[in-house]
């Protein structure tokens, strides 16, 4: 029943945008990303004292966010693909001297199994080390390595098929 203290509010202010970016790459829908972040931060509020005591509050809230995204995906596994992906047609910068379409890259990302997708987002968007990624995903560093390798292989295959190589 205690109020969240200023530290919580500062935490929200500082982490909301990075979490929003992660959420989008996990679900491919900006509006859903809004929801996932709000829900994850609300759950962080609920567990705030525990979060404060965690070795890494940042890792804690990322784990909550990833769990939220996975939960949503399980509930809506038969839903139509996210509309934001189709709507976004702006090309991304040159990759290997060729232009990668954002839509294709996001679709490729979304085609990955949930854990591989989360691994890729944490490793290559958040620039987290294998150890840090393992801490968020609650798995071993070896698992992160293998998941990363599989994900990169899948992405390369998918993007090459689209003539948009990594």
């Amino acid at each position, binding site marked *: 029943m205690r109020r969240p203290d200023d530290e919580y509010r500062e935490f929200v202010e500082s982490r909301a945008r990075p979490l929003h970016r992660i959420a989008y790459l996990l679900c491919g829908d900006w509006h859903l990303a809004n929801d996932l972040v709000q829900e994850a931060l609300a759950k962080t509020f609920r567990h705030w004292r525990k979060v404060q005591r965690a070795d890494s509050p940042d890792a804690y809230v990322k784990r909550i966010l990833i769990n939220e995204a996975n939960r949503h995906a399980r509930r809506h596994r038969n839903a139509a693909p996210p509309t934001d992906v189709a709507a976004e047609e702006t090309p991304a910068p040159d990759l290997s001297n060729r232009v990668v379409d954002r839509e294709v890259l996001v679709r490729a990302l979304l085609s990955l199994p949930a854990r591989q997708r989360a691994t890729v987002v944490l490793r290559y968007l958040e*620039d987290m080390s294998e150890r840090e990624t393992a801490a968020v995903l609650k798995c071993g560093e070896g698992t992160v390595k293998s998941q990363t390798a599989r994900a990169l292989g899948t992405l390369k295959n998918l993007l090459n098929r689209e003539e948009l190589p990594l």
Partner: protein
Amino acid sequence: MKSPVEQRLSDALHDIVDTQPFEPDPAAIERRGRRLQRRAVTVRIAGTGVAAAAVAVAVGAMVIPDVPGSQSTALPATHQTTPTTGTSAAQQPLVRLADYLKTAPKPTGDATLVMRDQNYPSTGLRVVAWDLYGDDGTYYFARTRAGLPAQVVGHKSRGEGIFGREVAAAEYAATGDLNTARDEMADAPTNPGDPKAISRTNDKSLIDNWVWEDSLDALTAGAGNPVVRAGVLRLLSTLSEVTVTDTTTTGQATLTLTDTEPVVKDGPKSSSGYTEALCINADTGVPVTFHGGDQAQSPGIDINYEVSRVTLADVAAGTF
């Protein structure tokens, strides 16, 4: 050290997301978080039996046949028949009932005993819990009525004094300045000596939400005291988001007070309008039932309350 492929992937991912703006809605997040907290505590009681945080739960609603020793005379006033909102004029049923209650005699006993019968329609789970609120600010909890004497004898008061402060704020609100009373109620959970929570925000809807939640706590904890109920009703009459409707519950005339959470900005999926509805006896203000849940999602929780006045000595002796 990233390989060229990894670096290109990293650059591409950043390019996709880096320009997207996002402004969180801290007030909505806090409201949602507090409600999750409350639900979680309620469920924890169901699963494990205790937890100091159990205190926070008491929020709900109640169905109360009667409160021995308190008022029972019907109100002379006529209740409105259509939902009304927020202004003091529109909340007349609450103000009128509060005016009546604040002069009612205090009932016998020195503690209020509340039986909480909680039901979760989505899972079929039912949890009954017993709360004992001493007029001296103590709070005891047990899963069974028979378990309460040991709690009192062992001086196992819980709640960190929060309920006592909420009840005190409600007592003040019965006849005191409402603006001051709102501040006192909104900050009742803040530990004495800590910075006031209301000093950190100008968000009226957030403060209203605190007043609503803390007032429901006070109404439960002080259900046996008409002055506390009067103060709570005066406080609730200041909440523009709350609607008041004449209803009938298990054969008794009731008022249903409904507070609906605004839909989270750009987030109808995460917040479809969480609603809490408190039903009170129209003549006594004693809480009868409570419902909480998302409008478009699972039914949430339903609570029935039974309230009576007892003495702590009788409870300790097991003769209540």
